[in-house]
C-alpha cells in the first residue's frame, strides 16, 4: 500500500528547541433550513403568543416545537397556546465570558440564565433573565417574557424573562 522509493537517509533527526505551531482558521458557513414548525411558531411569537406542538397520545405540549413526540413516536397533531407566564425550573447567573454563537462577540457578564416551564408546556425552554443578583433568583419563581419593542417574527422578539413574584413552592 505504500508508494515511493527511499531517498537519502537522514541519520540524525533534529527537533527545534521550541515547538512549532501551525495557526489556521477554518471558516464554515451554513444556511440552516428552519423547517415548517418554525414558520408557525415565529408567526405566533410576532403576535406575542407562545405555541407548542401537541401530542395526541400523551397530551404533551412541546417547546421548541417538533413534528413528532419522541416519547410516543406519534406525529404531533396541532398547536397549543402556552404561557406567556411560566416558572423557573433551573437558574444561574453566568460570570464567565462566552462567545455568542450568533453575533460572534463575547457576551457581557454577568447575565442571568434559566430553564423556564411556560404554563401549559411539558418541556423547559431556556432564556436570559434580566436579574443578575443570584440571591434574588430561585427555582420555583414566576416569570414573564419581555418582548422586543418591535417584533419581526424571529426568536429575538423575546429579549428575555423577568421575575413577577416569589417562588410558587409548587413542583419545579
Amino acid at each position: 500500500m505504500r508508494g515511493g522509493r527511499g531517498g537519502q537517509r537522514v541519520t540524525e533527526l533534529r527537533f527545534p528547541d521550541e515547538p512549532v505551531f501551525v495557526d489556521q482558521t477554518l471558516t464554515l458557513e451554513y444556511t440552516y433550513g428552519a423547517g415548517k414548525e418554525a414558520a408557525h411558531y415565529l408567526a405566533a411569537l410576532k403576535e406575542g403568543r407562545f405555541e407548542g406542538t401537541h401530542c395526541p397520545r400523551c397530551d404533551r405540549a412541546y417547546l421548541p416545537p417538533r413534528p413528532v413526540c419522541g416519547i410516543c413516536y406519534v406525529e404531533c397533531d396541532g398547536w397549543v397556546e402556552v404561557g406567556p407566564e411560566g416558572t423557573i425550573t433551573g437558574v444561574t447567573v453566568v460570570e464567565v465570558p462566552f462567545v455568542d454563537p450568533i453575533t460572534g462577540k463575547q457576551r457581557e457578564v454577568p447575565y442571568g440564565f434559566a430553564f423556564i416551564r411556560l404554563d401549559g408546556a411539558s418541556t423547559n425552554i431556556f432564556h436570559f433573565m434580566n436579574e443578575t443578583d443570584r440571591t434574588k433568583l430561585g427555582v420555583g419563581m414566576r416569570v414573564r417574557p419581555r418582548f422586543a419593542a418591535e417584533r419581526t417574527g424571529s426568536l429575538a422578539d423575546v429579549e428575555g424573562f423577568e421575575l413577577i413574584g416569589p417562588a410558587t413552592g409548587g413542583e419545579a
Partner: protein
Amino acid sequence: MPEVAIVGTGQTKHAPKRPDVNIPEMLREAVDRALSDAGVTFAEIDAVCFGNMDLFEGLAQNEHWLASTFGAEGKPLVKFNTGGTVGTSTAMGAYYFAKAGLYERVLVCGFQKQAEGNSQGAITTVGDPIWERPMMAGAIGNHAVMASTYAADSGITEEQAAKVAVKARRNACLNSNAHLQLPDITVEDVLASKTLAYPIRMLDMCPTSNGACAVVMAVDGVAQKLAARPAWVAAVAGAHDQTFQGDSPKRMSEMRSLIQVRKKLYDKMGITDPVKQFDVAEIYEPQTYAELAMCENLLFCPPGGGGAFIDSGIPYMDGELPVNPSGGVLSTNPIGATALIRVAEAAMQVMGRAGDHQVKPDVRMALATGYGGNAWTDAMILTSERPS
C-alpha cells in the same frame, strides 16, 4: 456468538497541553501502550474502532488522516462520533463487531487535543441552530442550570458537592495518567474558587484536557491467551433522551436515559444491591453535582440521598463502593477519549492493573458509564468471570 473481553489498555498522561507532540504522535502513545499491555502487535489486530469529536480541533473525517497512526491500513476501520459518549459508543461498537463474530481482536481508541482547537466554538454547535444557539450560555451555563435543578430537588449543599471535587482530585494523585492532581485540595479551596455560574465554581467543573486512550478487545478463546485476567464485557446498554436541552423535566435528579440503562443492566445482571455487588464504578461525571445525581439514578443511594451518600464515605477509595478511583472526569477530560477512559479504568480494576489506585486485589464487577449529548447515557459492566 463469542463473549468478548478487554485484554489491554493504554493512556497518555493527560495534560492541559501537549506541545511536545502532534495529534498523531499523541494518539500513538496510547495505542502503543495498549498494544504493549495486551501483548499484541499491529499485525494481530483485525479491525480498528476510533472515536473523536473532529470539529473540536477543526478537523473532519480525521479517521482517514490518522489511519496509519492506529494501524488501520489494509484493515476495517469504523469511526464513531457521538459527543461525550463517543468513548463508550466506540467501545460498544467494537464489542458488537467482536460478538457478531466479525473480528477476533479489535483496537479501540480515541483522543482529544483541546488546547489546539476552539472546542468551545465547536461545542456551541451542539445546540440546535434555529432553536437553541441564539440563547445558549455555553457548557458552563447549562451545567449550572442543571445543577440548580438538582440542588432544588435534593437539598444537596455546596459543601457536599465540594467534597466530590476533593475526592476526585485527591484520587487523581494515585493515577499517574490523570491531568488535575491536587493532593492538598480541601472543601474550603473549592468553595473559595471562582464562581463560574452559580452553583458551579471553578473546582466543581471538569478540566479540558489533551490526551488519548486505547483498549484492545478480544474474543473468548483468544482473550485468555493474551491476559491472565481479562475484563469480560458482561452487559452493555445505551439510551438517549429527547431533542432539546430543556426537554427532560428533571434532567439530573431523574436522568431518563441513565434510568433506562440502569434498568436494563441491573435486570440482566441481577443487581439488586449495587453498592454491595459492584466493586468499583467509573462514572462520567462532568461536574460535582452530576456525580451525586448519577449515584442516585444508579441506586447507589436513595432519591435525594446524594448529599448523605458523599457524607457517608461509601464512594471514597477506602469505602464500600469507590466511585471514580481514577479521579474521574473531574480530573481528566479529553472529550473524545473521556468515556473510553471510564471503560479502560474499569477494565484496569478488573484486570488488577490499576496500580496505586487499584481499589482492592480482587475486583469482580465494575461499572463504566458514558454521558454526553443531550443527557445521553451508555454503560458497560465488566466482570472477572466470563459470562456464561
